[in-house]
């Protein structure tokens, strides 16, 4: 009975008892969720346009951040380093299209999935070879990003918001908005949507698949760079971030593999869910449940909606 009480009632009593803590937890979950959503967004872009389940998205994020910081350490001014990193991501997109996608076109999904695994290893090896394996600090102030925290006195307590988190949330929403406009209003955006719908039909109306893939991978690279800067500013830049990037997978399947809004909503659900779970229910089982809670939330949703919350309904034909 007391066990049931501890699971079902006590956490809510705690929430009501200390609303400021609840707000703080929700905020942290929200920010974490936004960043998960950004990684998932990169996945969705590539999956929609090329049907590739890009496992390397998380590593691209670390690689981009590492390139930025590494270049700055070698004496390049911050904004020049940023520009150079963007050039590197463009080169990466070209290389991926040339070396991986083009020879493997029309192969089964799992083969392409495995190829992005190979890409993951190459990027880890390359990144560590060029810039060393030690964790690095993100050049936050050089990029004119705010630091420090804002404290609010509400609900009879103190809620402290990191300025960098606020910046992250703003940049993330801006990016999603820009992407949405890009997809809906521009010529290339329409071409991207056409390719996502049907490769062959797109080809037949004169859309170049090669070009589209480069653009998509480059866009995903830019998203990865932005995410990398934000995550890097919160902790530091190292390949340990890879585990965080894996969290984008439950976000992705929760929202549905093909849906941009799904990635956002999924990210927020997972981010807030896991922070609340860790803070209020975690102590009951010894803590650390953050490492797997996200996957169980996603699993629970999938059992009721196998295509995710916003995914296209899976229709199977013989």
């Amino acid at each position, binding site marked *: 009975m007391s066990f049931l009480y501890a699971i079902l009632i006590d956490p809510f009593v705690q929430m009501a008892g200390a609303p400021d803590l609840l707000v703080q937890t929700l905020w942290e979950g929200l920010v974490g969720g936004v960043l998960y959503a950004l990684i998932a967004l990169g996945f969705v872009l590539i999956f929609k346009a090329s049907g590739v389940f890009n496992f390397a998205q998380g590593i691209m994020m670390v690689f981009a951040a590492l390139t930025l910081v590494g270049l700055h350490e070698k004496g390049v001014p911050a904004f020049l380093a940023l520009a150079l990193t963007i050039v590197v991501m463009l080169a990466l997109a070209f290389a991926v299209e040339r070396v991986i996608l083009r020879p493997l076109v029309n192969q*089964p999904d799992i083969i392409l999935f*495995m190829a992005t695994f*190979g890409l993951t290893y190459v990027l880890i090896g390359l990144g*560590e070879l060029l810039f060393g*394996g030690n964790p690095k600090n993100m050049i936050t102030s050089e990029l004119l990003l705010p630091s420090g925290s804002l404290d609010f006195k509400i609900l009879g307590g103190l809620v402290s918001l990191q300025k960098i988190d606020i910046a992250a949330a703003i940049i993330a929403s801006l990016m999603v908005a820009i992407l949405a406009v890009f997809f809906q209003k521009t010529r290339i955006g329409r071409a991207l949507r056409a390719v996502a719908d049907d490769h062959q039909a797109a080809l037949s109306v004169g859309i170049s698949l090669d070009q589209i893939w480069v653009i998509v991978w480059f866009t995903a690279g830019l998203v990865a760079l932005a995410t990398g800067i934000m995550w890097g500013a919160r902790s530091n830049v190292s390949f340990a971030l890879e585990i965080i990037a894996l969290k984008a997978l439950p976000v992705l399947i929760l929202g549905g*593999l093909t849906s941009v809004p799904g990635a956002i909503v999924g990210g927020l659900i997972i981010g807030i869910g896991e922070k609340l779970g860790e803070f209020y229910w975690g102590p009951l089982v010894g803590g650390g449940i953050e490492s797997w809670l996200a996957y169980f939330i996603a699993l629970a949703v999938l059992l009721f909606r196998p295509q995710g919350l916003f995914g296209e309904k899976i229709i199977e034909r013989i």
Partner: protein
Amino acid sequence: MFYREAGQYKTTYQADMSIFPILQDRMGLALIITAALLLPLFAGEFMIASVMVPFLILALAAIGLNILTGYTGLVSLGTGAFMGVGAYACYKLSTAFPAINILVWIVVSGFVSCSVGVLFGLPSLRIKGFYLAVATLAAQFFLQWCFVRIPWLYNYNPSGAIEVPSRTLFGLHVTGASATPTTRYYIALAIVVGITWIVSNLVHGRVGRSFMAVRDMDIAAQLIGIRLLRTKLLAFAVSSFITGVAGAMMVFLWLGAAEADAFNINQSFILLFMVIIGGLGSLIGSFFGAALIYIMPIIVRTAPESFGLTIGAATVEHLTYLITGALIIFFLIVEPLGLARLWQIGKQKLRVWPFPY
């Protein structure tokens, strides 16, 4: 291998259905097994303890994953954790009942892993493809969390690691610090050959065919009368049994002690590489894949020294990553169906040599 099979007639159904219908193939297999048996006479300790034993164990785990991913088409990213279940079960059982033969416990721990596997296999009925792959990540992270947070599993050992107790078999030390690499090699060889033989019979029979039907199209398989729930769960059961045994062997015959981190997500990924590079749905491919993925980094690490170059340990580590990744991509582009397919093509080419049609 320029052999001819002319004059080998099959006069019974049994001969027609045999796995190695050609005499030369059977002789080749016997040769490989003899070579494996005689290897400790020629090879050094490093070769046996650090190359052959891990290779055999990883190949066994790859076979386990291949049953699930290659034969039944259910992608799993939780193999490392199932190996961990086997290892921890074997450790608990053998420390709780030290009198009973360790080989018995290695097999029984396979059954423990089997039941956990079936539990996590349940969602596979509704969830498919990449969605299922991510769902198996739940098993991976949850089980790994259990290995760290439940002290009962490692007998409240302050270091948090499981250490292999010394056990004997017919008066010989087979596990623990005093067991010689040769003994451990023979035990591993016996288990791997035995399980491979059983699995080979399984996948060539009715069960294996129903697995493959489910892989190719599960709705169609259901229509021809294959019960999906039973088949998918059976695939999970067989697969996690084998990976569990491999996990127990990994700790007891190879590492000697392990922490939860030995069964992390990277282990799962590496096994998946082995299966895909080796060849989905091929037993010999599992061995090829394990050899390539496990032995290649060893060569990369030792190669610079033999050329007289000195490169820092960290650089070598990074290069290993780089080269492994590049090779994965290379092999996928050259032959997406894996090394097993290359092997088949090579054999066929040699058969028709010198008059290819």
